């Protein structure tokens, strides 16, 4: 452990050194940091004020639940409503969370002042200790601190990045683009079989696009499918950028897609499984997620298109019976739920798509196309769809 720590520190120091050379980004950073610290101090200041006045100390947090979600039809993204919930110390159910929130705010402030960033897990350890005089730990697991951090983000109206916290990175990218990541130039055409791991913070101060020749972005659901495309050099033959989000794409991937879409004007096509989870991944990329609705503006890609797998593909492509995976009750419920979301409700084609899937009674994975031919998906399926412009919106 000790060894690891020291190595970590060393790498960080290096980064700092690297960063310090780029004075341009640092200036923006400091201003943002100062603002964030001010927000944190205000939150704590309110608590102190009401405590000393013998009033109930509390702070309010915008509610992060479906009930407080609004679908903005004009912008075509999910937005958070105005509903807030109060978190107070003298409420048995909230007492612990109240304490945890303050503990993590304190952690964030220290982090910002030290000009360092930490992972979610790092934050968990930062806040973790046993409460003096008891056997109770401040956090039982990382899950507890993660939700508190998300609460804190919305409560402070600051992003996770602004709090100097990042999530575990997930998702890969390859294609006709060159990016600058924290000063390092990365040519995504030369990433070998592994691809470029999309960092969890893709804010402009860290990540810049240097040069891009691609025409569009193809986002696939999983690493396995992505490997197929990479091996077949799909991005080269079709001049695109190939991304993958390991299932539900993390913030980093979504932010990256959003920025490439907005700044480089690249259309985004999604190749996902034909099941409720695939549909929801598409929905998250397009409209934003319920949990992080407050970030939709920065992450959602309302113009993203759904390429497949379509429920009609079974018949259209004459797939074998073996690819069918039966829908279970959970799938059916989830599908109905999704069909009822306001952003799917008005789309006749989507309603038909989900209905067909339910009528079929089975779901299909992207990999099922392998039954036709190993490279069927890269050589036939996607090119055909692109040519025909056959997408679901």
């Amino acid at each position, binding site marked *: 452990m000790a060894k690891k720590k020291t190595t970590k520190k060393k790498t960080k120091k290096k980064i700092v050194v690297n960063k310090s050379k780029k004075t341009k980004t640092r200036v923006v950073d400091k201003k943002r940091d100062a603002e964030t610290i001010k927000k944190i101090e205000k939150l704590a200041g309110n608590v102190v004020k009401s*405590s000393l006045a013998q009033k109930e100390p509390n702070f309010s947090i915008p509610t992060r639940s479906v009930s407080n979600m609004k679908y903005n039809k004009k912008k075509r993204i999910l937005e958070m409503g105005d509903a807030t919930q109060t978190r107070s*110390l003298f409420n048995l159910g909230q007492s*612990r969370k109240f304490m945890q929130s303050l503990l993590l705010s304190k952690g964030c*402030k220290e982090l910002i002042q030290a000009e360092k960033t930490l992972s979610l897990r790092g934050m968990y350890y930062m806040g973790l200790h046993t409460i003096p005089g008891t056997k109770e730990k401040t956090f039982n697991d990382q899950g507890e601190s993660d939700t508190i951090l998300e609460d804190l983000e919305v409560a402070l109206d600051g992003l996770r990045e602004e709090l100097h916290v990042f999530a575990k990175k997930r998702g890969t990218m390859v294609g006709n683009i060159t990016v600058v990541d924290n000063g390092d130039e990365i040519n995504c055409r030369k990433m070998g079989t592994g691809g470029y791991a999309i960092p969890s913070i893709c804010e402009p101060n860290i990540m810049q696009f240097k040069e891009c020749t691609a025409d569009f972005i193809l986002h696939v659901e999983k690493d396995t499918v992505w490997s197929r495309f990479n091996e077949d050099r799909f991005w080269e033959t079709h001049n695109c950028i190939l991304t993958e989000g390991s299932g539900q794409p993390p913030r980093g991937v979504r932010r990256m897609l959003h920025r490439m879409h907005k700044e480089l004007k690249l259309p985004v096509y999604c190749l996902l499984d034909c099941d409720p989870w695939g549909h929801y991944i598409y929905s998250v990329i397009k409209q934003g997620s319920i949990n992080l609705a407050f970030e939709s503006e920065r992450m959602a890609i309302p113009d993203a298109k759904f390429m497949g797998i379509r429920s009609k593909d079974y018949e259209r492509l004459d797939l074998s019976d073996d690819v069918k995976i039966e829908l279970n009750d959970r799938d059916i419920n989830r599908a109905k739920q999704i069909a009822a979301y306001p952003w799917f409700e008005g789309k006749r084609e989507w309603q038909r798509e989900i209905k067909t899937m339910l009528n079929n009674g089975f779901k299909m994975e992207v990999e099922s196309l392998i039954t036709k031919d190993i490279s069927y998906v890269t050589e036939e399926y996607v090119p055909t769809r692109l040519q025909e412009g056959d997408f679901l919106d």
Partner: protein
Amino acid sequence: MTPTISTPDMPKAKQPKKSTRSKKTRTTATAETMAAGQRDISVSEFFAKNRHLLGFDNPRKAMLTAIKEAVDNALDAAEEGGILPSIHVHVMQLSETRFRLTIRDNGPGIVRAQIENIFGKLLYGSKFHRLKMSRGQQGIGISAAGMYGLMTTGKPVVIISKTKKNKPAHEVVLKMDTSKNRPTVISDDEHPEDDQLFEDGHGTQVSIELEGKYQKGRQSIDEYLEQTAIANPHAKITYVTPSNETIEFPRAIEELPDEPKEIKPHPKGIELGTLIQMLERTEARQLGGFLQKDFCRVGATKAREICKGAGMTGQTWIKTVGHDEAEKLYDSIQKTRIIAPNTDCLVPIGSKALLAGLLKEVKAEFFAASTRPPSVYRGNPFQIEVAIGYGGGLGRDDSAKVLRFANRVPLLYSQSSCSSFKAVAETSWKNYGLTQPRNSIPSGPLVVLVHMVSVWVPFTSESKEAIADYDEIRKEMKLALQDCGRKLGTYLRRRKRMARESERRSVFERYIGEISRCCNALTGTDTDKLYKALMKQAKRRTDEADNQLDDEGNLIDDNGRLGHDEDVVIIDDVQSLQDGDDTLFGKSKPKKKTKRKTKKKTTRKRK
């Protein structure tokens, strides 16, 4: 009104007994030969053979019954004489199975002439012919005990009595002649040397030697005396055990209960046979006079109404009333509406005294009592009292303990056939926060005391073990139980709430330290100052938890229902109750030395 033996004439009643001693060769009995074997049986003889009817079935029970009869008589005597009873019970073990019981009271004493009748004759006494609330009812008890002693050991009963300070104590040694139901006086002396036995200058002492068995635990003498002390908080009882330990049951209330009034029978409370007897014995000569004089709640109008209903008038001569007329009269009484008997003849223990009694003998933390208004069954007024004790040092795992009393006498046997036990089982205690198996009494640290007072307690048998199951009685019992149950429920809910509040506080307190430190780091506010401010607020917000902590007295003033309820006592200092977990009602079964501790406890608790 009484089951088998209902009149004092009974002993003389002819009861032909067929002695058909059949030999191997069958001899035909003629009326004459049979007549030779037919003779009187005295009641004493009857009971000598059927002693289980009186509660002398086995040596252990016999000894308890003997003590019970003597103590009941002693308490009755002292109360009737207007004296706060001090009773001394001495059980001396003479050999493995032989004991001498000595019971001494400070009552008014017995005049010399009556001693042999009272102690030597079955069915002789002052209590049978009247309708008055008293412990004894039939006049069988003490003489039966003496008879049992005589039969098992051959030793006579020794009675010492002193009626006045300036009169010497009198010692009478008695044997009873069972065949004639007549006492035989063996010796009769003045015993001035026994004067120091009676500190108050009067009293009676009975000594009976009998075959017995001494065993502690349930249905023991110890239990009986302990329960007697609960139901008679105005009595002081000193008990010397066979192992020569002295246990004191101190007096908790320095006040005699009111003297119960004697009442006349209520017309609706009698049966046809009794009516006929009353007609035979009345001093009145005309029917109207008889009804008005010999019954309660019958005035001139009512008497006329009854007579009219039977096709007679108030002027009808009693002499002319035969069996048929009596039956008509009886029917007419049943049809006529008559107000219930007056109930001032009943003297309940009273909630306050009941609590005092329970408090000194039961180690619970919560006590509640409830006294029902008097009611009537079969024309007999009665009243039900219930008290409960909960928590504290009571056993948590067992089912509740039911203490049954009738006219202040503990009932130890035949629990499950007793009306009060059934009432406890029928009450749904789940509503009050207790667990209760189906069709059973609740479980948990609970003692339930049910007391019935009546001019005539309907026992299921002569041994007076269980109260008969009349609907009216059970209903009253249930109502009283429910009343106590509600109070217990309130208390338990409040206790839960207090626990919850103090739990809440401890949660807040745990986090306040963290929060103060965080705020200090974030805003620079003084950690200590913030900590104190928050703690103050936490305390204020959970002040309900303090109810328990702040008070020291027995009564908690929670500004709520329980605080103002006089029939509820809550012991705060539960800790002191728990350190000696050993009375009869405590966790463990009583063992050898436990009694002494009990004594210490009770004296200490008395304030």
